[in-house]
């Protein structure tokens, strides 16, 4: 595999010499995500496809750790883990069959199990990467506990490829629950918010929640007796095609996501009262994640998210007319740190410039 890395290094050095953008692309499943659709239109811009650097480097189920090349398809990785009854418990979305684990970590998106299990970054243990000078660097490792050096591996999760090219990633994996059961009950939004939060304060095996259209859908995961006991305690009607339902939430194939309107992602304090924004809403993560299909102005949405202790992302523009920045603006002091970090990792500003923020 070294020749592939040498090619990557060469491409990086060439772009660095020419001060030309180098767009890192895994499976292209999230081309829609971030600013500019990824492209900058600057001269000399080229695309670095990571799919050629794929395959598992090391997987030892009893260590709960897998090390995988960044260009590996997420579906292939999940199949391998599945064979040992293990999983990526942050349930990352695929959005396409080509999606890679590198893109998944770089975008930092997690699925329905996030509120109970943790996010992508919580499972990243180590990375091997190429920085903006083409240097081959490794941070973190293959063990759960490691405090040697700054946590650069986790810093790269969600950095949208603006700091470096991920080569290999070590992830903590978890056993698949013995039993899963999806239940549903009708209620209004305020009651749903109250219920989800009060459940989270009790030792219950609730692994996913979703509120939409007057229905609270939730999933129980764990040992058979624990799931059975929780079902008796919480009530609700069993949803027969539960797996398919959570799949539609995770992959955004649920009808809510097909409205054609701009899709906003509001990450807020979970106890936030119902947000009255124009458009339709879909709630996940125990109330901490609220999707809005809305034509409202970006500033109005962003103010609402800030008041709720969080932030708003323009997740899908669904039309070229929407000019707002994808990500919530940063305060000046934070932006300064971001610019300086970018300078250290990518001094020639070649990696995905502007995809996250104009300044980085």
């Amino acid at each position, binding site marked *: 595999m070294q020749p592939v890395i040498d090619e990557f290094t060469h491409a990086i050095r060439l772009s660095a010499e020419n001060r030309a953008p180098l767009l890192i692309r895994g499976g292209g499943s999230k081309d829609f995500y971030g600013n500019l659709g990824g492209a900058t239109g600057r001269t000399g811009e080229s695309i670095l496809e990571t799919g050629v650097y794929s395959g598992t480097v090391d997987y030892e189920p009893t260590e709960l750790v897998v090390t995988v090349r960044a260009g590996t398809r997420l579906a292939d990785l999940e199949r391998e883990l599945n064979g040992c009854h293990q999983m990526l418990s942050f349930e990352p979305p695929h959005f396409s069959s080509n999606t890679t684990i590198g893109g998944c970590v770089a975008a930092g998106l997690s699925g329905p199990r996030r509120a109970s299990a943790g996010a992508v970054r919580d499972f990243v243990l180590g990375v091997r990467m190429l920085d903006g000078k083409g240097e081959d660097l490794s941070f973190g490792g293959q063990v759960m506990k490691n*405090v040697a050096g700054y946590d650069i591996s986790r810093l790269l999760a969600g950095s949208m490829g603006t700091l470096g090219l991920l080569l290999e990633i070590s992830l903590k994996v978890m056993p698949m629950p013995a039993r899963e059961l999806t239940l549903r009950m009708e209620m209004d939004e305020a009651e749903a918010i109250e219920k989800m939060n009060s459940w989270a304060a009790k030792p219950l095996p609730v692994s996913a929640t979703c509120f939409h259209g007057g229905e609270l859908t939730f999933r129980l995961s764990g040992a058979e007796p624990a799931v059975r006991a929780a079902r008796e305690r919480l009530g609700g009607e069993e949803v027969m095609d539960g797996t398919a339902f959570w799949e539609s939430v995770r992959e955004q194939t649920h009808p809510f996501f097909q409205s054609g309107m701009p899709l906003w992602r509001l*990450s807020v304090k979970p106890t936030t009262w119902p947000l009255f924004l124009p458009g339709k809403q879909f709630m996940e993560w125990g109330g901490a994640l609220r999707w809005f299909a809305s034509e409202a102005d970006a500033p109005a949405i962003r103010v609402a998210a800030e008041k709720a202790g969080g932030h708003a992302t323009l997740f899908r523009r669904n039309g070229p007319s929407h000019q707002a920045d994808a990500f919530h603006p940063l305060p000046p002091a934070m932006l300064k*740190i971001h610019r300086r970090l970018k300078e250290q990792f990518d001094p020639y500003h070649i990696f995905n410039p502007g995809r996250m923020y104009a300044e980085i």
Partner: protein
Amino acid sequence: MSSTALVASLRAFLPAEAVLYEAEDLRPYECDGLSAYRQTPLIVALPGTEEEVLRILKVCHAAKTPVVARGAGTGLSGGALPHAHGVLLSLARLKSILEIDPAARTARVQPGVRNLAISEAAMPYGLYYAPDPSSQIACSIGGNVAENSGGVHCLKYGLTVHNILKLRVITIEGEILQIGSDGLDAPGYDLLALMTGSEGMLGIVTEVTVKLIPRPEKAEVVMAAFDDIRKAGDAVANVIAAGIIPAGMEMMDRITTHAVEEFVHAGYNLEAAAILLCESDGTAEEVSEEIRRIDEIMESSGAMEIRASSSEVERLRFWAGRKAAFPAAGRVSPDYYCMDGTIPRSKLSQVLSGIEALSQKYGLRCMNVFHAGDGNLHPLILYDASKPGELELTEEFGEKILHMCVQAGGTITGEHGVGVEKINQMCAQFRPGELEMFHGVKAAFDPEGLLNPGKAVPTLRRCAEHGAMHVRRGEEKFPELPRF
């Protein structure tokens, strides 16, 4: 700036008792939990508000004076060792629990709040703060953030980085950063992860919002004894392979069980080569099912004795032995040196045999306690500091152990941090380009290098002078590294 002038600038806004500079007042701050290293600071500043922290940093920044932050001073790697020409910034007076939000399951606290105090305050709501380092009665949450502290339950519940939501941080340039959010993520780079475990090198934390989680209904522990340490290691792997994530899984070797049994009377099997404690927590249904399965696995893994705790009293007694391991080392030996490497679990017997061989070679006994669930190994080297040369031998022994951990694919520090103690071993784990990137990250927050200088990340020059070879995973040493 002279020390007199610095004292005067600080006294301009701090009360007299919050600025210490007389030798006898400085003495209590000369070391943290790693007492082998001692240094009195120029001045100790004890701010009582965030505003005071900000002003102290501005004064020090203007005067180009180093600042070393200190929480409860329980750290084991010398991270809070003062700087001879610097200000030691004690955050101990910032000890208010600002808010407990039981509905959102969060606590907003100042950095000097003790770890255990958070769980105590959350108790009435059936909630607690999960990371439980062994020093949790004394250690502060600010220090936990600086070190990314773990505890015996972190395989299941995570480290500090997994259990905090938001930080307020003041940079040495006097800017306030709000890192994280009240939601589950924040825009931009994950500075929350970067700050956690940064050993006071990047900024001063003035407020921490932690996650609180529901207290488990029930906990039970299985104690299993093995006549061979390899069997115990296999039993750990078998538990994981069965899809069980125990709340805690700890191993002790024979020398340890003998040392603790003598005064704790935990009821450990003294014939055993290794004792395994495996805890299950959760709802009553979950626990009884899991304990039954753990029992079966221990049996099929060849345990010579298996006992499940039948009451809370017995559970605590089983744990008391493990928790007494460090004090026990202090009883059977005048001094002990605690190491903190992490290894892939599958390399356990290999590394333990290596430690045994080194123990013979150096003529020093070594007790091994092991967070078996997450691979974090704490060899306790027993020595006598009053014997000339024995401390140096001990340090050499320790360094060899850490190199062995790196070679096995692990790390030189799982949870105690690098501080001053393991700074030379960083040269063994990281290559020059990686160390330079760490310096780059530091410079992004603290371009003049005033926060905790000389800790956590060695200069390339230091690595060359120490002569430490990069030992990672059987790779060759580095030709580009200059050696003197």
